[in-house]
């Protein structure tokens, strides 16, 4: 066809001005590209002005990084669930259950490294369960994970007898709390490593491409030969692993396993994903954005502590900020 076309006196796009123009740097474009980053800089700026004496210290940076890491880890798993137009409400419960089981194992004398591996494996398994339930029942992940959230929290309470577990090897807690070069927390490095791996997965691998396709149009994905159930399963396993790692990081930082740990963390994870530009309708979003989103939530949390807002008020402010930032994003998107 190409040949016959070339011979024609009148190539089809001859008259059309089909040249690639430089995109104009309107507010929309800037917002799309740098919006999340802008919010972050703005927030840090506010903090710097409000509390310059605390802000300009390396300890502050270290603390923000460490605090954000748990949130970023969970959010990256949540991101995948949202990417396929689903959601994972069980992330907080997975964090708690994995933390609790890992703690119990270590207290029982299992070497920390093995306990950690088993903990992550448990996270993967819990994700696998979520995925299987979604596939077998055909129900929306919202319903499934709403249920498993309660079940997993219940199991955590049973396993722990409703009480905190502590007294595990110092080698574990010391490692997790370590700072590289004195300023860079090891947990942030863990989060970065996971982010790099997942970012590679989303951008360079076929499985990543398939997940985006599935999120964009499930039926097209099926007709294009994508195994819908398999990829749904993979997504929930990734989410489970991320929450599992987060559970272990949290355990090491806190130094004890609480049965009520990470309650409500799914809110932060969802918020981080959405603030980071992930579409609730599926198929759109980037890991980098989610990392930024998680970082923003961390900065907001840190800032509110620094300004000594009472924790009750912190909840209110956090909720309002989430709605505000997403609404702003929608508003800009609509004006395009």
């Amino acid at each position, binding site marked *: 066809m190409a040949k016959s076309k070339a011979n024609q*006196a009148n190539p089809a796009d001859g008259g059309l001005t089909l040249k690639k123009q430089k995109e104009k740097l309107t507010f929309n474009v800037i917002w799309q590209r740098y919006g999340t980053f802008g919010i972050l800089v703005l927030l840090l700026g506010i903090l710097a002005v409000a509390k310059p004496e605390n802000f300009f210290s390396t300890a502050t940076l270290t603390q923000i990084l460490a605090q954000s890491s748990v949130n970023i880890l969970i959010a990256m798993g949540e991101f995948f669930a949202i990417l396929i137009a689903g959601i994972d409400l069980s992330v907080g419960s997975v964090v708690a259950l994995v933390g609790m089981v890992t703690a119990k194992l270590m207290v029982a004398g299992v070497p920390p490294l093995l306990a950690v591996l088993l903990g992550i494996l448990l996270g993967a398994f819990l994700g696998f369960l979520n995925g299987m339930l979604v596939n077998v029942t055909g129900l929306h992940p919202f319903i499934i994970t709403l249920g498993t959230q309660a079940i997993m929290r219940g199991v955590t309470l049973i396993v722990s007898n409703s009480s905190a577990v502590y007294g595990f090897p110092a080698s574990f807690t010391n490692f997790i709390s370590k700072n590289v070069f004195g300023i860079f927390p090891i947990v942030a490095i863990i989060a970065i490593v996971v982010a790099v791996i997942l970012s590679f997965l989303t951008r360079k691998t076929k499985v990543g491409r398939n997940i985006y396709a599935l999120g964009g*149009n499930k039926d097209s994905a099926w007709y294009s030969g994508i195994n819908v159930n398999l990829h749904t399963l993979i997504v929930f396993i990734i989410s489970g692993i991320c929450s599992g790692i987060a559970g272990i990081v949290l355990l090491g930082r806190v130094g004890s396993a609480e049965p009520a740990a990470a309650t409500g963390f799914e809110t932060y994870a969802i918020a981080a994903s959405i603030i980071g530009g992930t579409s609730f309708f599926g198929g759109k979003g980037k890991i980098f954005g989610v990392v930024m989103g998680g970082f923003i939530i961390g900065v907001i949390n840190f800032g509110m502590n620094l300004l000594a807002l009472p924790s009750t008020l912190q909840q209110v402010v956090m909720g309002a900020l989430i709605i505000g930032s997403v609404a702003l994003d929608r508003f800009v998107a609509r004006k395009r």
Partner: protein
Amino acid sequence: MDTLVEMKGVVKKFPGVTALKDISFDIKAGEVHVLLGENGAGKSTLMKILSGVYQPTEGTIVIGDKEFSKLTPKDSAENGISVIYQELSVINELSIQENLFVGKLPMKKIGPVKVVDYAEMNKRAKELMAKVGLKRDPKTLVEEISISEKQQVEIAKALASDSKVIVMDEPTASLTNEEVNHLFAVIRNLKKEGKGIVFISHKLGEIIEIGDRVSVLKDGAYVGTKLVSEVTQDDLVTMMVGRQVKKNYQHENAPESFENEPVIFEVQNLSRRDGKVNDVSFKLHKGEILGFSGLVGSGRSEMMNAIFGAEPRSNGKIFIDGKEVRIKSPYQAIKNGLAMVTENRRETGFFHNFDIKKNISILPFIKTSKGGGTVGLVSKKFEKECAEKEKQDMNIKCYSVEQNITELSGGNQQKVILGKWVAADSQIIIFDEPTKGIDIGSKSEIYALMRRLSDEGKGVLVVSSELPELLAVCDTIAVFREGEIVETFSHKDATEEKIIKASTADIVRKEGA
């Protein structure tokens, strides 16, 4: 005749593309004004400016005695303009009657509160549905009705808001002949009532039948307006494409019967679990293009979906080059060398979140992957090459393969979907309504492509509701009726009359009895 709407000097620029260059267009009361042009010529864009979806870069729009420099969807609706888009916009989750009155539900007062007056709604819905000939309970959910019925709902909706101008963007793309005749009866009634109709279609026969005036656009520029009574189909082709197109794509020296050629694809005793296809068998020979005709719902697409593994079979064997293949999912079908251009691009064809290149490359990637499609990396270089090649071959009009597919015109989206399946270099390719929404010039190129694929030794199966299309490309045409193949014609014997008779014989007999 009164002029209802006049668009003057309209220019529309998108980033990278000037879609409309100084277009003037008017709509008179009681006429059908046809808008004609190649894919991407700007027809839908012009109509979206009229309906307020897009704002023009330059130009004015006069509706009655009011002049606008741009319209909002609300302005447009309030001034009596209704547009039935290429991609239907009915709400599947609502009933027919609720769809008709979306945003303007009839209300009644019970004491101090206002509630929806369902009785009134039902009554008015019935009247409107009678006007467009839709024989359904108004309470039926829209997701349960066929595409043509959805279209009737859209027209009824336009009547419900008492529009003066009704724009129909490719209304007949998914309709059968019968349904098209029906639509035309409705359009003729609307004309009598003094409505102005804008009709967009790539089917020239229809344009001659229903149109009063025809305006042609080319590459966003205005070519001219003619009275339909004064032009022939050939004139229209020349105005639009700038040349004549071939009418037939069969080889002159094709054998009378392909019996003696090697069989490259065979289906034996295929039945679907839901009973929509019963015990169908056929063979495809080397060099033969096999077409499937029949009414919508007669089982053609249903059979193809089952062959492709997308829907479960209860029985049936599939052979490629004489070897039996096991196909239980599209993945296995693709791995075994099958491809299928599905009937409905929006629902089962494209990924709205992907650009052109990702939409095309997904298939080659799946085909070359391992582990159920999961293992492997995406190569940016391969992806780009693959997309550039299909852009050339399919003549996709876009400024870059990195453009999002939703920014393309309807016909160009369809070309991307075709490119996606061809890119996977499959052995057997099923084309289900391949030229839906594609302009006449590009159609001829797609027919030539099918013939080329067949000459290369690949299997080509075509399902189409457009008889001229089947007659133009197929060597053999099988006719479906109620889930079975009832008759098979060779190209030399096939005529439209015979095929129509074969596909409706039973129904006629039943009605006669």
